[in-house]
């Protein structure tokens, strides 16, 4: 039981950290200064969520585990993040769509998690959901702007959907350790809300797409190894040092 809880908490932490890491790549390179600030802000929120989950996982793990040992010294086969969040930033449209698809899920998931029996997870969820509500509003507004903006932006969003949709199924597939909430039960609600936003954005909801999964079990796309190489480089180069 306890190992399920640790794995689940790590899954939540890894997902938030990896999306934070991806979004932070935009810092200093955004399309508009205000939006550079916004995406960096989301990155910072997600990093804060990740830290809360890692700290809890470290307490559960005991021994010498810390938030940093869990984030910096686990390998790509041990990371349990969703495949969706490790996907490359691509253009602004792809980044926006990745954020929207995830935030829409994370919002519904946190709604459930804040009522779960584990007090600590419930507390983190109820603190984080306020941030997620903002991420969701911001990203859905951008999905509309780009979907219903110019011909070029519409086409770019179609490409983004083609690229990312196949990673959305995994969100609703329960991993063995995922016993605290039933993610499959969120699917219908998620689909309805995404359809409403896509309709506003004049974008089609894809049908019959084959879904890629594996992230929750530590089977990732090839991209994650490169991300961890960069993320963990200093810690691994100078083992045991304090920073």
């Amino acid at each position: 039981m306890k190992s399920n809880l640790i794995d689940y908490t790590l899954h939540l932490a890894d997902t938030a950290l990896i999306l934070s890491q991806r979004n932070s790549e935009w810092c200093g390179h955004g399309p508009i200064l205000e939006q550079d600030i916004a995406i960096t802000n989301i990155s910072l929120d997600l990093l804060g969520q990740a830290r809360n989950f890692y700290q809890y996982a470290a307490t559960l793990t005991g021994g010498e585990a810390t938030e940093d040992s869990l984030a910096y010294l686990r390998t790509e086969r041990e990371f349990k993040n969703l495949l969706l969040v490790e996907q490359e930033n691509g253009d602004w449209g792809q980044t926006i769509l990745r954020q929207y698809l995830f935030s829409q899920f994370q919002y519904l998931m946190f709604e459930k998690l804040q009522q779960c029996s584990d007090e600590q997870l419930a507390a983190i969820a109820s603190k984080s959901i306020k941030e997620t509500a903002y991420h969701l509003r911001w990203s859905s507004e951008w999905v509309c702007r780009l979907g219903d903006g110019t011909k070029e932006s519409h086409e770019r969003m179609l490409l983004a959907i083609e690229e990312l949709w196949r990673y959305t199924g995994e969100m609703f597939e329960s991993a063995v350790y995922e016993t605290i909430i039933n993610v499959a039960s969120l699917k219908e609600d998620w689909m309805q809300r995404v359809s409403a936003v896509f309709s506003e954005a004049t974008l089609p909801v894809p049908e019959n797409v084959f879904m890629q999964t594996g992230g929750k079990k530590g089977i990732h796309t090839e991209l994650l190894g490169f991300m961890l190489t960069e993320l963990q480089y200093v810690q691994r180069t100078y083992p045991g040092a304090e920073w």
Partner: protein
Amino acid sequence: MPVQNFEELFQQKIDNEIKIEPKDWMPDAYRKTNIRQISQHAHSEIVGMLPEGNWISRAPSLKRKAILIAKVQDEAGHGLYLYSAAETLGMSRDEMINDLHSGKAKYSSIFNYPSLTWADMGAIGWLVDGAAILNQVMLCRTSYGPYARAMVRICKEESFHQRQGFETLLVLSRGTEEQKAMCQDAINRWWWPSLMMFGPRDSESTNSDQSMKWKIKRKTNDELRQNFIDMIAEQIKVLGMTLPDPALKWNEERKHYDFGEIDWNEFWNVVKGNGPCNKQRINARRKAHEDGQWVREAAMAYAEKKQSKTKAA
């Protein structure tokens, strides 16, 4: 009223410490100098995001990563206030950004140096933000109102950044031999470029006299540089590190530190575009702008559609 009288009134206001506001009459040269200086300052904040942003993905702990992201984001915020302050003088942000990309407008040369190790994040915070603060504290009292008010807010955040930078180095200075070496190396590389941030010597500075008279500046380059050296020469003792200047020595008579000759040749070379990263920095800014073109167009088109729908309804 003849122009002469306007100018006299304007100078009287300055002499009486009354702030100049956007709609007030001002000499063309005052307007131009302020636009040049404020936009240059804004560009420095934006370009300055790059050498530090470079280390976000590799920050050595989650806490350091969070601090660094927040810091770089603060800089974007400073850029935003400063562009807004400059816009009150009649130049649009787009025009300013175009001038940056074409090379017409400058930014602080310090950001043309590379950030090579984690210790550089500490050295930039401590030395580069430290040097910037001395300039900015003075600018809180600059004569142009919107600029002075933007600086008050910016100074609060900058002094926080400087302390964070110092603390980053303090941890390294108490760490392993490798960390100590990393710390000293970063200080060695950033020290002289930080001194150059105050600009040419007073005797070589073309803009100084008029800017002092108009109270755009209130201290000369050399005064500020000396203040900075005096401050850092004391703080370095806490780190147990050294500054890479054998001539650095307390002068009891002057009550200031004496210091060695700055390599002005290097300074002018970097200003002229030959620094180690001039090309990369501008290319990165241009690329962000060009890649964002379609996004800005889409946002504009969408806003127009929304507006016409509202009108029709």
